[in-house]
């Protein structure tokens, strides 16, 4: 079983105060770990540390007992895939969807090699599985946000990783596509992938109902099962806003709402 463990993780950018300190985190195969928190607290930075892209100011990140820093980028990316946030700041991808997903084979290829016929057939199979074959020839930039997100997931799966990190996977999607992607993430976890994702929506963490961590503005970090962490009082503390976690009578499903009275009073 693959295990990603972060111990006493701290990070600060040059000449700035600490973004977070003393974070302990664990992820293993088959688990979904949601990270919640307001904007700017360092969720994406934390993901970068967990992916081995950023070197934490203090603390260690180990993958199956080996320090992540000691692994080469290729070794890391054969174990951990990263699905980036879809944002306008991202470098525009201009080549076709097919060429984009094929980049997922890069960790398995030597510096001067290109994807083989086997790599290509693997990519085609995954494109078909995710209903992307018909738009595979189209430019990545031209397809819908939902298709772009699916293509990023296909690329991640082509890496044949054990863990997948999602940075706000639903941030640019409509509700239907959000649900589709969340269901897909749950299915991936059920097939054995370890998943860590950041989200702004506590309801998504309630839907996925596995492990949850919160990172508050003051850098306070709290982890545990969803039922324990996703309470009205704790979420209100994290977001500095009165939030209610209520149980819907018809389905007994928990959901997080902003009370109308709070909304009216909000300046």
């Amino acid at each position, binding site marked *: 079983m693959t295990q990603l463990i972060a111990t006493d993780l701290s990070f600060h950018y040059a000449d700035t105060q600490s973004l977070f300190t003393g974070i302990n985190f664990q992820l293993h195969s088959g688990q979904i770990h949601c990270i919640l928190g307001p904007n700017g607290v360092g969720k994406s930075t934390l993901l970068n540390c967990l992916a081995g892209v950023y070197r934490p100011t203090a603390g260690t990140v180990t993958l199956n007992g080996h320090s992540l820093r000691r692994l080469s980028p290729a070794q890391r990316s054969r174990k951990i895939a990263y699905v980036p946030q879809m944002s306008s700041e991202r470098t525009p991808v201009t*080549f076709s969807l097919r060429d984009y997903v094929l980049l*997922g084979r*890069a960790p398995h290829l030597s510096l001067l090699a290109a994807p083989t016929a086997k790599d290509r057939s693997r990519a085609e199979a995954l494109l078909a599985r995710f209903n992307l074959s018909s738009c595979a020839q189209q430019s990545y930039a*031209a397809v819908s946000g939902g298709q772009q997100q699916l293509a990023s997931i296909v690329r991640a799966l082509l890496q044949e990783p054990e863990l997948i990190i999602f940075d706000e996977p639903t941030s640019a999607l409509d509700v239907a596509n959000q649900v589709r992607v969340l269901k897909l993430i749950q299915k991936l976890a059920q097939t054995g992938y370890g998943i860590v994702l950041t989200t702004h929506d506590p309801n998504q963490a309630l839907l996925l109902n596995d492990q949850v961590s919160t990172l508050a503005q003051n850098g306070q970090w709290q982890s545990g099962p969803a039922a324990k962490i996703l309470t009205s009082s704790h979420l209100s503390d994290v977001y500095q806003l009165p939030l209610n976690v209520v149980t819907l009578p018809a389905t007994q499903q928990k959901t997080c709402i902003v009370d109308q009275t709070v909304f009216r009073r909000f300046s």
Partner: protein
Amino acid sequence: MILKKPRFSYRQFLIGSGLLLLIVMFGALSVGRYPLSFTTISHFFLHPLQLAPAVAATDQQILLELRLPRILAAAIIGAALAISGTAFQAIFHNPLVSPDLLGVSNGAAAGAALAIILGYQAAGIQISAFAGGLLAVLAAVSIQHFLNSRGSLTLVLAGIIISGFMQAVIGLLKYVADPEQQLPSITYWQLGSLEKVTLSNLGLNVPTLLLAGIVLLAFRWRLNLLSLNQLEATTLGANLKLEQGIIILCATVLTASAVCLSGTIGWIGLVVPHAARLVIGQNNAKALPLAGIFGAIFLLLLDSLARSLSAGEIPLGILTGFIGTPLFVWLLLKKRVTFV
């Protein structure tokens, strides 16, 4: 943006362009102030060991000492500039980047101007130009290092700074140059020409050009990975420092070697990669080799024009500017029409 399914496959494009290159090379051998017939050129190539008895001695001499080195140089330099332009545009995520981005061209021009003023001969000028080009890149990379930034934009800005500095150096050297002998020589060299290419100086530069070109061609698929942002490329296994370093070094060597042979020739490294991408799409694995062939054809055609348009030879830098500008505008318009 819907990418049209090309009418021809990539392989067909590549073979077709390769054949076109051979035809243009053959045609370029016959063009010039002293035209040679295709029959003469065919005889020359079909009987190389007998040194073509059916070909007149003057024709042989023109072919061997003037046309052949020049045609080979045009093809190699055109390909080198286009390949390095494609590579730079990919790794700097910027379609407006060209090979002289890091100050290579101006650095090489400053090196050459210095050698001219010091009275060096052709080989000395070439070595000095090469050193100037490499020194410029080293300075740009050092600025990036001192600014403690790993971003490609900082390197681009550093390149612009060094380029500006090298232009000032060239200006100073032109100011102190002897106006009768040295100044025309520096100016002519700055405008670019293949007039002084010989088999021996071509032979000096071809090994480095070939080596750097082959490395970049081998890296062509990897360029797609490096064209992503830093986070995505790293999480897909790229060793950015190493891989970008190799590509910058090879693209710089290609440009500096090309500038050594011909002086500064602008536009090819900017325009030709766009033409290749327009034809074959944004995949660098396919665009890079095609850009190389297109670059070779483009410079061969321009050089043939330069040799035949007037009694005196027109500097290549002038022709590339006059033809490259409208061509670039046309390519941008075409891209908009086709891809939007």
